């Protein structure tokens, strides 16, 4: 077991990539082999994840565990540094978990132009990128994984997407690339002015002392752009509705469940611990954009007539809560943010799954043409209702623990931040919960209640198939379990959050 501990994270990152390479060799016609290989790869990765969960020292969740430290690019002192703590572990496991479910769901849901081989290879490459981002502890390594994610998603949207896939894919790509450009600049600036190292841990220790405040502010700005675009925060969010709407179901699920978290994770892992002073200066701006996003995203939802686009806009609002939590710079706020990331991943991922299955059956997601889903496919209809409730933050389901503690934290932000300002944010965010209930129930009413429209009244609509059961039930169970026992996740994240906030004194 000891030796496994050393290689666990490398396995978690590279197993999918290796299998993807092997799949290149299998002829395209052999679809079953591809499916089995992809499933095997994601399951094996997930098993590694379970092993990590089992061997993780929960008493020391604030420490990096399963560390790997090897030379990589000596000339710039960049190392192959991996490790997980209580913040990255849940996100890593979530990524592994969602990838398995996406492959299962794909079993008989390959979008046009079909081609399971290419599609599954892209998913595996994505998984490598995502897992890698969550465990990388070196900025260059982080950047590489962060960028690895881009290409497969670009192709997934551009090839398997809807009618405007070209526009959406390029917009997604360029938007993110633009952010990445500023981000790498900031990384380089940290390297040169922060102590000739890319190690996140070392930078946390030394960067703040070495870099003058004015430079810190600029560097943070670059990081902010890179991460905020990925989150996405208002007003850098416009790539998201297009990408989500055009992406195939699996792409949307991965995008919502994991990709968006890369941005918020970046704030918590890199920007805030390394540059606490700058974080403090930027926090009011971040908080302000976050609450604007909450209200703005909700209004955007209310204006939608397409179910998938509506769910996409809801991500802007939900990630607003996550960012508000982060902006408070308190332990409540950042714990809420990590919880919100996981919860949003599960809930919005599920909503996209359901939307995809609805589209499979009705070939449209126009809300004005839908209706009576509960009559034609009752189980799917109830699941949609369940997810809508979870998404609007009903206590007892996971979404609540992303919102409520964030609102709570805004009442009393970290010392040095304006209480009056953040309490205003708190009230605005609380109002956002009403709007969330409004657009989600409105969607539910139009899609699930009522009776089917005449054009579909006679259509044979199948309820759930087995891949849907297998893929969805674990997510639904997790949404409920985490909702009732939030300690499962808070217990994991709390120590690490305290660590990330150590430079803010008592925190919250």
């Amino acid at each position, binding site marked *: 077991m000891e030796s496994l501990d050393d290689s666990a994270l490398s396995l978690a990152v590279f197993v999918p990539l290796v299998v993807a390479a092997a799949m*290149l060799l299998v002829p395209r016609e052999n679809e079953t082999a591809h499916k089995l290989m992809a499933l095997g790869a994601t399951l094996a990765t997930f098993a590694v994840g379970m092993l990590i969960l089992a061997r993780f020292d929960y008493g020391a969740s604030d420490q990096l565990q399963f560390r790997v430290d090897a030379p990589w690019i000596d000339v710039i002192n960049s190392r192959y540094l991996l490790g997980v703590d209580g913040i990255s572990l849940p996100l890593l496991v979530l990524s592994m978990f969602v990838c398995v479910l996406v492959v299962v769901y794909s079993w008989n849901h390959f979008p046009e132009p079909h081609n399971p*081989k*290419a599609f599954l*290879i*892209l998913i595996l490459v994505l998984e490598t990128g995502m897992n890698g981002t969550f465990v990388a502890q070196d900025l260059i390594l982080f950047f590489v994984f962060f960028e690895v994610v881009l290409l497969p998603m670009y*192709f997934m949207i*551009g*090839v398997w997407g809807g009618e405007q896939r*070209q526009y959406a894919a*390029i917009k997604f790509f*360029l*938007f993110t*690339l633009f952010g990445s*450009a500023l981000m790498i*600049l900031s990384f*380089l*600036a940290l390297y040169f002015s922060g102590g000739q190292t890319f190690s996140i841990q070392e930078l946390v220790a030394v960067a703040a002392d070495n870099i003058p405040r004015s430079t810190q502010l*600029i560097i943070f700005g*670059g990081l902010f752009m890179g991460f905020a675009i990925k989150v996405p925060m208002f007003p850098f969010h*416009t790539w998201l509705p297009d990408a989500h709407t055009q992406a195939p179901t699996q792409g949307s699920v991965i995008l919502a469940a994991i990709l968006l978290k890369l941005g918020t994770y970046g704030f918590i892992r890199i920007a805030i611990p390394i540059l606490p002073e700058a974080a403090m200066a930027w926090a009011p701006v971040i908080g302000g954009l976050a609450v604007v996003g909450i209200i*703005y995203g909700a*209004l*955007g939802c*209310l*204006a*939608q007539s397409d179910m998938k686009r509506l769910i996409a806009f809801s991500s802007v609002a939900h990630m607003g809560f996550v960012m508000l939590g982060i902006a408070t710079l308190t*332990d*409540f706020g950042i*714990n809420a943010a990590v919880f919100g990331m996981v919860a949003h991943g599960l809930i919005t991922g599920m909503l996209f799954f359901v939307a995809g299955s609805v589209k499979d059956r009705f070939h449209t997601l126009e809300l004005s043409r839908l209706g*009576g889903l*509960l*009559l034609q496919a009752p189980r799917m209809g109830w699941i949609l209702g369940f997810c809508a*409730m979870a998404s609007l933050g*009903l*206590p*007892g389901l996971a979404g609540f623990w992303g919102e*409520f*503690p964030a609102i*709570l934290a805004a009442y*009393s932000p970290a010392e040095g931040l304006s209480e009056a300002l953040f309490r205003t944010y*708190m*009230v605005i965010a*609380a109002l956002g*919960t*009403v*709007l969330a*209930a*409004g657009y989600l*129930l409105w969607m539910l009413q139009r899609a*699930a*209640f*009522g009776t089917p429209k005449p054009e579909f009244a006679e259509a044979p609509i199948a309820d759930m198939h087995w891949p849907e059961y297998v893929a969805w039930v674990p997510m639904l169970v997790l949404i409920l379990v985490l909702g009732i*026992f*939030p*300690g499962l996740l*808070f*217990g994991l994240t709390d120590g690490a959050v*305290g660590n990330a906030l150590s430079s803010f004194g008592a*925190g*919250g």
Partner: protein
Amino acid sequence: MLENAWVIPTLTFVSFWLILFFGKRLPGHGAEIGIGALGLAFVLSCVAVVQWVDRPATEVVPHGTSEEVHGEEEEEHGAAGGQRGEDRQVVATAVETGGHGEETPIRSAVERNVTWFTIGDVEVTAGTAVDGLTVVMLFTVTLISLLVHVFSTNYMHGDVRFTYFFAALSLFTTGMLLLVVSSSTLQALFGWELMGLCSFMLIGHWWEKAENSNAAMKAFLTTRTGDVGLLVGIVTLFFAAGQTFDIALINERALTGAIGHTALVVGAVGLFIGVIGKSAQFPLHTWLPDAMAGPTPVSALIHAATMVVAGVYLVARLYGVFWEAFDIGAGGVNPIAVVGGITVLIAAALAFVQDDIKKVLAYSTVSQLGYMVMALGVGAWTAGIFHLFTHAFFKGLLFLGAGSVSHAVHSFDMKADMGGLRKYMPTTFVTFLIGSVALAGLFPLAGFWSKDEILVGAAENGYPVFELVGIVGAFLTAAYMTRCVYLTFFGEYRGHAHPHESPRPITIPLMVLAVFSVGAGLLNAPGVEKFFEITENRVFLLAGVEHHSFEVFPAVVSTVVVLAAIAFAYLLFFERRLPRGLTRRNALARSGYTLLTNKYYLDHLYTGVIVGSVKGAIARAAYWFNQKVIDGVVNAVGIAARRSGDWTYRHIDQAVVDGAVNGAGFGAEGFGGILRTIQTGRVQQYAALLFGAATVLALGLIIFV
């Protein structure tokens, strides 16, 4: 049972899942699970009541500790002291001088908590806190819910979603039970919102029709609007009370002056906004009459024992906060009493113009909730929860009675489809009559005692205006119920069905509730005062709340007023003696009538103006901004970058870009067939864009580093 009160909500929660997963396969389609669970929960609740009554009174609480603190505050504020009644000064002095003669032992609450989760150094607990108020609520909720379950087996027979209906009933009851046993505000929020969810599910039970799902949405969104206040209140009190959600601690700290006044007022106002939404107080009461779209047993459950009384319960539970924040002991006016008082009157007036029997009862509920809130607002704590207790029985009875009637005539329209039903349905008639008389508050039925206590409390605590409101409300109540009974049971039958008495699963719950509607009030009758003794708690004593027992004078006044109202309505409806067509001839009466039939135009304001503009113009404007302004900038940048990229491509660095194109092409080929779908021009554009981005990066490097 006091230690293990968590068992009771757990029972119904388990029942929910069992019904959901196995209900359909059982012979009773899940109803037997629900009834079994509720039956057991009821028995356990009775055990809890007995154990509580047997519990020795050992805790000694100094009366009116808060007065002591107030005394100090008054010195600072000066003028405020003048409003205080003299007797209170005496109490305060007694405490200050160590007057131990004032102390009486009470039963101490039974608390049991476990750690829920920990964030930073804050440990959040979940658990139960059981005292007299809790056991009374447990008893009432489980009894009413059990009867509603039994009633529904017949009433909902053959419904398309029978099993689902029972599952939702179980979950609904779980929500209320969870709320009443909660030891913390956060946990209470769970029960609170769970009921919101279930009301959504049950009001929209027949969601095929848009009007039903609209009503469900309206209920959820309106209460959710109030919940914004509740959230803010909970959060404010969490910090103000020293990072705790614990209700007992919050009360204690509010009463001992450990919480700053501003925070306390913000917290109390926030919570009260939540109460206004949930307990359908003016001006957020409009969802409740629409909630009649749900099946009748649900209405009974929502209106009698759960959901709407949750708000009243919350005020009673966190009374220390409200008491201090609004200085209830001082008399005069305060927001709670005012909102409650307005609600009493405006809802009672609306009950007059309804033709739907359930809507009469719905507005009546709003009005009665107003009484409870007003009682708490005027410092009559015991009277408020006592009215909650008695009202549960007679309002449950009336709703189930209305259900029984509609079961017979297949309608809720009193004017079109009812009349003369006393001949066809004697049991329903008698029980409904008992419920109506109890609601009107005639001696010696339940409503008489609790209403009298409220009136006495208002008068004694220095709120004479609200005593008057209570009396006027009593007049209106008696009159509209007389109208309702007349239209339903007297005169000639006007419908086309063949009315018949309902079967026993329907009539037995009616009879049980009728017994309670007669007898429940005696529990706090003069000389008995058992209810007061059971519910008296630490907060009550700490705050120095006073309990005023029965008094003859207001009782006589209210009885005379009620009799007058009945006589008035009798003349108006039975004898048709009073002028008819008043609304046609008199402009003032006509405009009053129009105002009432339009429900004070509040619905126009909410649905038309507020929801309409947010959903319509505002949302559209935001989206326009998104598509045209933000995306316009994005697209313009994209185009500019592409042009400069193109330019560079053509004039400067063709070789490099060519390489990029080939590279991209090669990569795409690797994915098999991808290249086909991407037009060559697109790839070139993309590469050009990449190059543009790289240029930006290079520029940045030069500038910043």
